[in-house]
């Protein structure tokens, strides 16, 4: 335990001082602040005409206006990059520089090293997200002057927790790659390639595969269209990126009532009220549990591989 703490604190201080982390932090921070500022401007003009809106504060994080995506999208996009940047050379760099055998010849269990490194990454991510959220909240409060309700705070907290676990998934993946590949360049490129695939290509593949399996055109019957859309969504959900987007979209936007395709008949007569927090959660439990499970699985694979690795240089 003491050995793990020593590794943990060293890694945290390395991360906090590392250039790559500071650069990513700066990019996300600036982009987030800008997105918030733009969002707040449009919320203000909207509030003037409709002063009874609900969940105004949350919209600071979710509104997009013009060209700039909302704050939550910035986190969803850059978060994985932070995870990858913190982990891609965690193990193989120490192997190639000869520090690993020196550390492992000290009296600590081998898993202290990987646990300490993973937890240090998670702690760094947590500090980053919390500070970003607080800065953005402050700016939002200043600009729109509407304080958050209790439920909004809870939703924001859930957003932060989900994001931490999601980014920890990418961290775990990067650490796994750093165990599997001896060269840091290989592990970095491999991890980024997988991220690009899951984030961007998965959408195209899902569309193409669904169209190939269930061909549809404008005149197709509704059942066929729904089946096509469902298949497409099912394939996309194999990517943690999709799961995260769905989960976050529902958590921070109480207006989201459903995630799948909906027929016009089903919406008829529906009163467009926001969902309660518990209802929103009900909608995305599968997404949340899967993200947690994926994070644990990726870390576990890395853990086992690391424990069995020969430490010879």
């Amino acid at each position, binding site marked *: 335990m003491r050995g793990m703490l020593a*590794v943990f604190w060293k890694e945290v201080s390395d991360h906090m001082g590392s250039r790559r982390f500071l650069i990513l932090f700066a990019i996300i921070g600036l982009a987030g602040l800008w997105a918030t500022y733009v969002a707040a401007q449009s919320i203000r003009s909207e509030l003037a005409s409709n002063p009874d809106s609900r969940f105004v504060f949350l919209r600071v994080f979710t509104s997009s206006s013009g060209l700039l995506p909302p704050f939550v999208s910035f986190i969803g996009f850059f978060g994985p990059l932070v995870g990858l940047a913190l982990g891609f050379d965690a193990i193989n760099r*120490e192997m190639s520089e*000869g*520090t690993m*055998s*020196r550390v492992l*010849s000290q*009296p600590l269990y081998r898993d202290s090293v990987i646990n300490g490194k993973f937890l240090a990454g998670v702690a760094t991510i947590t500090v980053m997200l919390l500070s970003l959220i607080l800065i953005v909240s402050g700016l939002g409060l200043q600009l729109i002057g509407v304080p958050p309700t209790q439920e909004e705070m809870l939703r924001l907290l859930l957003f932060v927790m989900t994001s931490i676990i999601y980014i920890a998934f990418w961290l775990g993946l990067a650490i796994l790659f750093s165990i599997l590949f001896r060269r840091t360049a290989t592990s970095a490129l491999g991890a980024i390639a997988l991220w690009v695939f899951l984030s961007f290509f998965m959408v195209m593949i899902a569309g193409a595969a669904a169209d190939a399996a269930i061909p549809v055109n404008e005149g197709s019957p509704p059942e066929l269209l729904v089946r096509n859309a469902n298949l497409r969504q099912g394939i996309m959900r194999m990517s943690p990126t999709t799961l995260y987007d769905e989960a976050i979209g529902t958590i921070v936007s109480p207006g989201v009532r459903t995630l799948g395709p909906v027929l016009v008949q089903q919406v008829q007569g529906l009163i467009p009220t926001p969902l309660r927090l518990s209802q929103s959660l009900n909608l995305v439990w599968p997404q949340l549990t899967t993200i947690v499970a994926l994070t644990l699985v990726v870390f576990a694979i890395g853990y086992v591989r690391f424990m069995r690795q*020969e430490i010879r*240089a």
Partner: protein
Amino acid sequence: MADQAIIDATNLSKVYGELVAVNRLNLQVQEGEIFGFLGPNGAGKTTTILMLLGLTEPTTGAARVCGYNSAREPLKVKRLTGYLPENVGFYGELTARQNLMYTARLNAVPEKLAVSRVSEMMEVVGLPDVGDKKVAEFSRGMKQRLGIADVLIKDPKVIILDEPTLGIDPDGSARILDLIVDLSHRRKMTIMLSSHMLYQVQRICSRVGILVKGKMVALGSVDQLGKKLEAGKTTLDVEASPATPELVDSIKRIPGVLNVEKSGDLLTIAADKEVRSLVAKAVTQTRSALLQMRLQDYTLEEIYLRYFREAH
């Protein structure tokens, strides 16, 4: 446990797939010794060391260090044993002091004690003024000395050094070897070092073991190993003036002499028992002057090469 060896390996083997890296190795190192572990590259020296430290599990056999089984209680072994790996690495972006402090924390040395010990050890290894420099700026020799300071931070009973002088200039090597001898004498530490730099080992080690292809082919002091190689045969260099053919003949008649080779005044005599006094008598009887007589010694290099070739 007075007479128990501080490093004790019995029937230690390590098999990687088809390759037998270490083959039924037996090794005892007594407290206070400087033990030299010799062998060509790939002989299994590092594998053996890793098994001693519990960093790799032996396929069969067991290693005990300070009485603890390395595979079962690696933490206790690692608390008492300092290990300097081949090509030791440090975190280049941290200073020397920060690197050593990290080691101290991993060893749970109390913070205050660690600070003073780090300064002390930097001084012991001759790097008192570079503590706040980043290790990335260090030369190889400095890194190696920092490595020894790093090993000393935990105040070990046993130090295992893997190729401590590899790639270091002669002056740097000599300083590291002096440091090792000093540690052994002043701090009463048991030291085991692996190397293929034979003459250095010969200079400082009380005992050596020669490992070839995973097998310990010889074990003992350098003198003992040389004697064993001779296997009863001795070689004499004799210089006599003049070295006449009659002298050669009379030496050849001495019982036990197997062969005499003559080049100028120098005679090389091979014998299977002690013949020095008889040879001296023969020289004086033929009225030549005996200028010198020397029993040929094996240097460690010769010993090593002989064992190495025999094992092939």
